[in-house]
């Protein structure tokens, strides 16, 4: 039941925040903060107070589980489950939720209630995605999370927000429908072989089907998730959406929502369709590698600061795709770490860009330069996260990338090598960002106040997080290993069959 509360609290918080804003704008903000805090509390309670792991036959060990009937006619139930992987991602979600509320404190001035409603509902949807273990419920949450995000972009975004919001929505919804088709196909194949109609994740694991069927169904899931991830060639919604979204929207989008794609790959694509996934792995990893290089090249070419960061996300998430399909402990842990670190570092970069836009009313780097002279704190922090994003050892992103690459190297050395070259390109775009925005001769026109305490506090927290991930990541690995073991038990037997696989 506690798991249900994890989703309900932000939902109720959102419902409360909207009218609360009529009293005072700050009321909505406080309601949101309190909702996030309560959610965190619930999560910690679930985590710390669980008596022992819950064993699911063929599905691994879980921290907490909830199950209630929903649409029994179709074999749909409200099944929620928490393991290490989802716990980490929910932790990230709540953390960035806090951050989003705080940084919107001054940025969002109108329709505050509606804003926080949408923010909290997006977060609730995301948490739902991370918890759902019924495929229908998963899809439900998947869709639920998009709508408020659409509104966040379309209503509080920048100049070209409508275009971006609609593009975002069409891409994700269109691919979502493919996933729905795939879910349904899987369910029917399962029904044909076993006679029961069910959307239950654990029962669908290990469904027997012919290789071509498995491949087709897997592709349905795969495309939906890599659109979300996003991987080349389905990435083009992302720069627009990120660029036009309000800062909090970008943070949620980049920090959390992209991770749902990766999570989907981890939780569903490979465990449900292990053989197809293995056969498909070279292509998927090729897409990942292309994403790494292509995203970096595009990032380097942008003039819009936010677009640069957005394309850098394409590059970073390419690593995750690589890691997922390498499917060994190192690469998977790397993928998880990369997800967390990317959430933090890119989130911070978006906050930095947002703060700049608030001050300079532009994101165009051709109009910046020499900001260090006027805003040393902002510039220093921006540079720190740019450097984190280029994968400096000692910070979280490096750990993620390194583990992914070293894991990939065992399976497909060529991909690992090309991916490593992407690290050079990352240096190119991260440093050009620093150069064009912060360095160079200061401009007279640019005279704006430096970061204030609220932003500094957020940035400090994110800095601590990224350093922690880089310096002492083992607790994260320990936490994730439970979840990853769950995934790997699901594929263990099947992968044995694929002979000569070095995983």
């Amino acid at each position: 039941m506690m798991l249900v509360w994890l989703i309900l609290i932000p939902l109720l918080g959102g419902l409360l925040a909207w009218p609360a804003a009529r009293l005072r704008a700050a009321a909505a903000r406080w309601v949101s903060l309190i909702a996030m805090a309560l959610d965190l509390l619930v999560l910690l309670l679930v985590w710390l107070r669980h008596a022992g792991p819950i064993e699911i036959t063929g599905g691994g060990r879980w921290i907490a589980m909830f199950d209630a009937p929903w649409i029994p006619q179709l074999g749909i139930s409200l099944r929620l489950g928490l393991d290490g992987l989802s716990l980490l991602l929910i932790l990230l979600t709540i953390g960035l939720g806090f951050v989003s509320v705080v940084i919107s404190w001054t940025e969002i001035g109108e329709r505050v209630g509606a804003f926080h409603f949408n923010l909290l509902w997006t977060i609730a949807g995301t948490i739902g995605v991370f918890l759902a273990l019924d495929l229908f419920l998963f899809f439900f949450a998947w869709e639920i999370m998009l709508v408020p995000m659409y509104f966040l972009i379309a209503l509080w975004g920048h100049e070209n927000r409508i275009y971006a919001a609609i593009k975002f929505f069409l891409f994700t919804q269109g691919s979502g429908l493919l996933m729905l088709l795939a879910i349904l196909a899987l369910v029917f194949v399962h029904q044909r072989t076993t006679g029961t109609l069910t959307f239950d994740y654990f029962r669908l694991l290990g469904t027997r089907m012919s290789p071509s069927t498995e491949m087709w169904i897997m592709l349905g899931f795969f495309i939906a998730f890599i659109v979300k991830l996003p991987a080349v060639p389905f990435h083009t919604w992302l720069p627009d959406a990120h660029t036009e979204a309000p800062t909090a929207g970008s943070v949620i989008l980049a920090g959390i929502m992209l991770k749902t794609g990766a999570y989907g790959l981890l939780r569903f694509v490979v465990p449900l369709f292990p053989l197809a996934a293995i056969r498909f792995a070279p292509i998927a990893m090729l897409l990942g590698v292309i994403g790494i290089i292509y995203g970096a090249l595009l990032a380097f070419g942008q003039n819009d600061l936010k677009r640069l960061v957005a394309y850098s996300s394409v590059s970073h998430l390419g690593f995750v795709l690589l890691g997922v399909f390498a499917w060994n402990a190192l690469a998977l842990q790397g993928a998880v770490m990369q997800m967390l670190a990317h959430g933090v570092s890119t989130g911070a970069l978006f906050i930095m860009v947002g703060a700049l836009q608030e001050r300079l009313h532009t994101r165009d780097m051709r109009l910046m330069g020499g900001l260090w002279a006027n805003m040393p704190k902002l510039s220093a922090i921006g540079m720190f996260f740019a450097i984190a994003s280029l994968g400096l050892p000692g910070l979280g992103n490096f750990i993620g990338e390194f583990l992914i690459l070293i894991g990939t190297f065992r399976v497909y050395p060529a991909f690992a090598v090309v991916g490593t070259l992407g690290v050079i390109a990352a240096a190119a775009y991260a440093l050009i960002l620093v150069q064009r925005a912060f360095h160079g001769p200061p401009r007279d026109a640019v005279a704006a106040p430096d970061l204030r305490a609220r932003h500094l506090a957020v940035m400090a927290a994110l800095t601590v997080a990224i350093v922690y991930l880089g310096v002492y990541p083992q607790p994260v690995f320990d936490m994730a290993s439970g979840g990853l073991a769950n995934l790997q038990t699901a594929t263990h037997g099947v992968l044995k069959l694929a002979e000569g696989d070095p995983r």
Partner: protein
Amino acid sequence: MIHDLWLVPAFPLLGAAILMISAGRLPSRAVALVGVVPVAVSAIVSAIIGIGFMAAPPSGHAFTEILWRWIAIGGFRPAVGLYLDPLSLVMMLVVTIVGFLILLYSTEFMAGDEGYSRFFAYMNLFVSAMLVLLLASNLLFLYVGWEGVGLCSYLLIGFWYQDAANGLAARKAFIVTRIGDTGLMIGLFVLFTHLGTLDIQPLLHRAASVWPHGSAIASLATALLLIGALGKSAQIPLQTWLPDAMAGPTPVSALIHAATMVTAGVYLIARMHGLYMLAPAIQMTVAAIGAATLFVAAFAALNQHDIKRILAYSTVSQIGYMFLALGVGAWTAAIFHFMAHAFFKALLFLAAGAITMRLEHHEHDIFRMGGLAKKLPVAFWSFLIGSASLAALPLVTAGFYSKEMILSETWAHGGAVPILWAAGLVTAFVTALYIFRAVFIVFFGEAKTPIVGRYGIRIVLPLAVLSVLAVIGGFVETPNGLGGVTIFSRFMGSVFGPAPLAAGATETALLVFASLVSLSGVGLAWLLYMRPAPRFAAWTQTPSVVAWRAFFLSGWGFDVVYDRLVVRPFLYVVRINRHDAIDDVYTGIAEASRGLHRLLKLTQTGRIRWYAGWLAAGSILTIAVAVIR
């Protein structure tokens, strides 16, 4: 005390953290204090540990301290751990002591700069990262330091960020070295995948037992590590960043781009020498690259105008010597030369800084100096001592002993055609020539630029100490003919094994010969630049010579080639695809849908007869579909 080894990198890190968090709000006196004291403490701790180590070596002549378990995933368990053996001990001592001296110098040199606090923060961070690099017990942790020093190098080259050229130089340094780092990283993948560990000592043992001598995989791994070393140590073909790196403040050039960071590649190969011994082909490549680099860079140095660029090419060239030494298996010689080089090159840079800070507009062009010997005696004597050591003037300089050791071991290794040895010898001559060219031009002749200001004790003291070190630093290891001191090689013996014994008579002959070469270089410089013959001046103006000089000035044209082959194609690809061609596909789909909409909209005419017609047509269509099969 040895258990407090972690304090050595921790203090500078703490200093850096304090300075960063204070965000420039500390008064400059406090900044200087926070900037220097941690490194001083580190130096003292290092010294105590060093004395303790020498007095009572730990078992196996090495000490390992695991600070915490960093990552543990399956068999991949790199730890954050420190490893101290004579090799890292020597390096640590050099880094902390030279670092301390340079920081002390900087407190005066950088006084009044608006980024005073930032400077010391970066410098402290650098020292810490460098110590991590040296002390890491694990290759992954080493990589942290490796990239950390690269970052600090980037930050400090671009320290004066308002000039875009500095930023360019900084980015170039970072990206070129990162190309090398990528090789290193892939090397780590190979090592871990095949040996199952990244802990250096177990890895070396395992490699020795698993990989046969000359095996392909060992060659691959060492080649990849070598790429990393080439980038960091500015060896051909990745040497182009170092001359540009002189855009940073002079203490930075002294510490990072002369004494310490650029020798990280040497350290890496020395640290992994066990692997290289398994891959003789690659080891030979190391020697060849070293020889080529030292030769190429020396000629480039010969034609520079900027005093710091002379020293920069000189650094490239001297590291070439170290690579040559590594390549021929003269591990101890390489480290010995590293140490000597750290002393005299730091000295040279600090002296050069002491010159430029006193000149109006911080003049860097040696042809606009002149006659400074009398006006700036402190700088003169320091620079002269440094130059003498660099030129390896016999008997009294550290550079003489270290270079001598390299040349003699190269000769011993050389086989039938001692081409490597020849390159080293020729370059020794050129080295003496180019550095004394600078000495004569800068300090003698007419004064061309006015002098301002004066030196404080914080400038003079480091110069003095380094001068002493540049002279006496060589006495820890002398050739048989000159006393046969073997303190250094015996100390290093636990790492590299016993030093090879050179044949006595040959060695002495070589010694004399090399001394003569150095001296004649100085002599030639004296002839050319103190007593310029008109014929020489005329010869320098002949077209072919001008062309060659321009070629050498540009550092043998590497930059141009790279610009054409790499930079421009990259920028071209970026430019043509700035708007993301893939997006056009989706835009096209959207446009097609709109077109279809407009087309279909035309059918909605609003006329009853038209609609009825379509109804009939539709009916016919359905009839056709139903009936025809």
